[in-house]
């Protein structure tokens, strides 16, 4: 009879870790650099910054390397690192005139003041697996970049349309006409910080938005999709989707009246218009608004967030996506993946207790039947 090897844990862990470390860089190819990840896996970096809740391409790229490309695992590493940092300041609101638009579209109107700006998108690219990339050389990449830039050389300054200094928000146009329900400012101000204050339900809207901005892309998409498919559908229309570079400004830590510019943050921002409701105080029909905003370029996430923001404003909870406790408790990838993985831990004790219960129940049953 053997004795269960319970004391071998330390060696087992060390060996398993050594094997994983060996396999991470197994193969004969060049070692992947952190800089390459930062430069060429930008969407992954953006996703990890969002889910990891820390805007730093350096840290996100490093975490991606460490996590072998698993975005949830990389986000997890970033979140843990984040716990070691004190919160030193809260950013100021950014002003529309300070943002640099990289992309801006509206599905509600064909033409919008300032115009639709496609910017960089793969929306209309045919997803044909490009075998050419397999043989992509540094030389070819540089040449093609150069010729792309060359194509602008012949463009005369006068040919370039005067760019707007401020792009008005599409929803502002509708707001002016009184077509959008006005929400009280108290719903977002003062903002709470769910990483510093405990979460309980019902949760303040700023907390809801923050939890969604930190959420796992796939999870928030799935819940938003459930609403889009008809479980409490709100029939969203994208009033505006923006990708922009916005300034990060904080108030000076000592000289309160001054502000300090810290750099820029790229964000994706979406406003969706949902079917009108007439349960507002004024009793007149209007559109309702959903808002989404996340780090980096992640349009699916920003749209999903805006849809769910609107869903959670529904007075009656007709569908899972309209129940804020249901939505907000299940969208965090770090929490859901961690809890899912924990089932790999030993459950001898709980299972023994269950065994005892089942055996007891069987005993009682045979007792009754006898």
């Amino acid at each position: 009879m053997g004795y269960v090897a319970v004391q071998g844990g330390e060696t087992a862990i060390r060996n398993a870790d050594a094997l994983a470390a060996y396999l991470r860089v197994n193969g004969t190819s060049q070692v992947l650099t952190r800089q390459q990840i930062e430069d060429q896996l930008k969407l992954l970096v953006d996703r990890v910054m969002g889910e990891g809740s820390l805007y730093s391409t350096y840290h996100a790229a490093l975490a991606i390397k460490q996590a072998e490309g698993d975005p949830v695992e990389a986000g997890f590493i970033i979140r843990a690192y984040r716990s070691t940092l004190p919160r030193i300041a809260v950013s100021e609101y950014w002003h529309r005139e300070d943002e640099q638009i990289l992309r801006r579209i509206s599905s509600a109107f064909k033409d919008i003041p300032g115009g639709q700006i496609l910017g960089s998108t793969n929306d209309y690219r045919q997803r044909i697996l490009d075998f050419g990339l397999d043989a992509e050389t540094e030389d070819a990449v540089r040449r093609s970049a150069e010729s792309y830039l060359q194509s602008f050389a012949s463009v005369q300054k006068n040919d370039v349309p005067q760019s707007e200094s401020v792009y008005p928000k599409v929803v502002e146009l509708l707001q002016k006409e009184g077509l959008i329900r006005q929400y009280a400012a108290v719903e977002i101000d003062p903002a709470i910080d769910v990483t510093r204050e405990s979460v309980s339900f019902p949760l303040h809207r700023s907390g809801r938005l923050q939890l969604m901005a930190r959420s796992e892309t796939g999870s928030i998409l799935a819940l938003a999709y459930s609403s889009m498919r008809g479980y409490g559908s709100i029939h969203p229309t994208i009033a505006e989707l923006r990708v922009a570079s916005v300034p990060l400004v904080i108030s000076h830590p000592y000289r309160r009246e001054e502000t300090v510019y810290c750099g820029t943050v790229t964000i994706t921002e979406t406003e969706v218009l949902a079917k009108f409701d007439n349960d507002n105080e004024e009793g007149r029909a209007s559109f309702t608004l959903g808002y989404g905003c996340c780090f980096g370029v992640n349009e699916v996430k920003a749209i999903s967030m805006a849809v769910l923001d609107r869903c959670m404003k529904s007075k009656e909870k007709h569908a899972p996506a309209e129940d804020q406790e249901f939505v907000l408790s299940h969208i965090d990838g770090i929490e859901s993946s961690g809890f899912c993985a924990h089932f790999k831990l030993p459950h001898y004790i709980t299972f023994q207790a269950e065994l005892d219960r089942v055996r007891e129940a069987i005993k009682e049953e045979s007792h009754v039947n006898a």
Partner: protein
Amino acid sequence: MSTHNDYNFAFIDENAKKEIRRSILKAICLPGHQVPFASRELPIARGWGTGGLQVTLAIIGPDDVLKVIDQGCDGSVNAVNLRDLIHRTTGVPTTFETAQASIIQTRHRIPELPLREDQIIVFQVPIPEPLHYVEPSIEKATAMHAEKDYARMWVSLYEDIVNYGSVTIGASYPVMVHENYIMAPSPIPKWDIAKLNMANCLHLFGAGREKRIYAVPPYTRVEPLQFEDKPFKKEDFSGHVCARCGAGDSFLDEIFDEASGGKYWVCSDTAYCDSRIQKEAAV
């Protein structure tokens, strides 16, 4: 760009630790009441003991001696990992011996050796809400606690007895703390429930994913939910003793024996088991 290889004592930043300690103090003042806190992410996955870990990291000091067990065992892989993290970020000495420890972090067990007034036991909690059996919404369950509206809980236990002849809850059996709040004792077996009642030590419970901290202070009445005519029964190991140390008074793990095809039983509390074997050898 700095590389940040040096972390704060006990990993988490001091402001966060202070906040967690405030939640702990509130929890001690309201035995059995779940206090929400802003749970921090740790280098250990959610669901792997981050609640207990945050409590331990918030209360630990350089003079402490730490013991970490998982399922009663000091050598279990996750216990090894958590102990290593706490030791690496604090430098505090660790021990396997229950009597030597000032802080014991545990998953799913309370040591067999009774704990003292100068010891704190920290539980890792997966699901802090005892009413989840009858009410999945935390918002509604919170209101039920506030109103001491426990009727549905009692009815569900009653229905269990009607359907199966006994209550089917195994681990994490709901308890009444100080005749006030119903509390989830974390998934300890029913065997350990009695140890919570009028204990000498402080019990702290941390649920990281669910962001709740609660406590059972020393000398607090803790009773399992039971009916007069259907008293609470703990796991029955009658007829079995530990195959290693011969103990007949400890919670036993049931093991399949590959060689004989049969089964045997050993102590789940490995420190208790080892201490009995050592004592035997010393005689």
